């Protein structure tokens, strides 16, 4: 299987787990967002270009597969992938601290872009209670799953890179 195929299978497995398995432990309907974690990890490992592409594709997958506001995740993940990719040159790939903790900041950033888009679309909500009900549990989930997702992405990337150099 080609590198792209392996990566695609990895994305699909994570997505299926996110939508079909992890709702079991959802709190008030909120469960971890593996696609965002994957975008952050991949962007930190591979740089701006590939990070942006990964963000766009994972976001588009979410938009098309679940029927949410079309394009909304493709938009936010693309920006997240682009920004995180800019730090790729400044971070040691073996160093897990920054990508794992950056996922918290990125989740909050992603939340605020989505909130802004929802306001622009005409939906009104109370920002304080919304942050308490949705963002806080999301941050806890993301922190708990950031390390395993980053570890898996790192291992996959290492294997794929070794295959490319051989």
């Amino acid at each position: 299987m080609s590198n792209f195929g392996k990566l695609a299978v990895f994305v699909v497995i994570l997505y299926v787990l996110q939508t079909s398995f992890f709702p079991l432990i959802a709190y008030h309907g909120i469960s971890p967002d593996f696609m965002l974690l994957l975008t952050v990890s991949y962007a930190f490992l591979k740089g701006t270009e590939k990070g942006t592409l990964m963000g766009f594709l994972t976001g588009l997958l979410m938009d098309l597969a679940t029927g949410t506001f079309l394009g909304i995740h493709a938009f936010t993940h693309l920006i997240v992938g682009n920004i995180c990719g800019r730090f790729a040159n400044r971070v040691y790939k073996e160093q897990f601290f920054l990508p794992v903790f950056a996922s918290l900041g990125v989740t909050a950033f992603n939340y605020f872009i989505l909130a802004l888009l929802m306001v622009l679309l005409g939906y009104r909500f109370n920002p304080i209670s919304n942050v308490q009900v949705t963002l806080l549990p999301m941050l806890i989930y993301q922190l708990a799953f950031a390390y395993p997702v980053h570890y898996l992405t790192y291992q996959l990337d290492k294997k794929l890179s070794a295959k490319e150099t051989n």
Partner: protein
Amino acid sequence: MSNRVRRDKEDGRKGWAMVFVTISLFCIIFFAARGRFQAPVSSQAVSLALSPFQQAVSWVANEIHYVTSAVWEISTLYEQNKMLRNEVEQLRGINLQANEALAENERLRAIVGYQQTARQFDMVAARVIGRESDTWSRMIVIDRGTASGVKEDMPVVTPQGLVGRVVEAGPNSSKVQLILDPRSSVGTIVQRAESRVTGIVQGDMDNPTMPQMVNIPKNADVVEGDVIVTSGFGGIFPKGIIVGLVSSLKNDDGGLLKIGVLESAVDFQKLEDVLVITASREAPPEPIKPPPQTPGTETDPQAQAAAKVEASK
């Protein structure tokens, strides 16, 4: 030097491409939200490719859930038994009252000659195979599609109450918009006979587990604990399906209306199996019979006599 110029040019081109894609996506979001842009083919293709994996994983997840909940049930059996005994005592009392009310209801119906219409539904059972983890919309994916007769805008229910409606039907899977989704709106009515106030139930972004009943006039007779059912207005949801109970009431920002916060009848956290209503119709009413007339005042004595002969046969 030329290499540097070429790299700068390439970076500039990529930057422009990024700006173009970002602006395009921004436009797509707004066009799609207003219903002017859809991607049905690609969306169905993605659903078709993902649904077998989602079915397999959700089956495993359900089995794990079943085992863990069974263990939990066993460990709490004694307490549950005690609680249920108390509940049975209470329910016996309520049942007596209900029987009285039922008998009275039948008597009154007979007096006013009210024909009860029985609603008949054709339903397709489906399993939930995917659920969105997003914080801004509430959608689920079920394992039935057009091959099982599921189409867009069909209502989705459980024995407890209303779940939502099908927004996109693929061959083997469909996407269901829950009543908790902010885009969803359901025409509803208060079930209590003295009230019958109508309103619209929408998803609430501040509280993703409790929908809101909006457009209730401030002086309307709606109280906490009222049962809210579908009104049948709008033509998508049949009348009389339970949506939830009014948990609390609050004033609308405008001050002229109030909002009822509902406790949904369906536990969306534990949603595993649902029913899609593929056809809904009312049973045909009984044929109209001529009312019995006082002897000697018949409007058509011959027809009346013929009816008597028919009845005696």
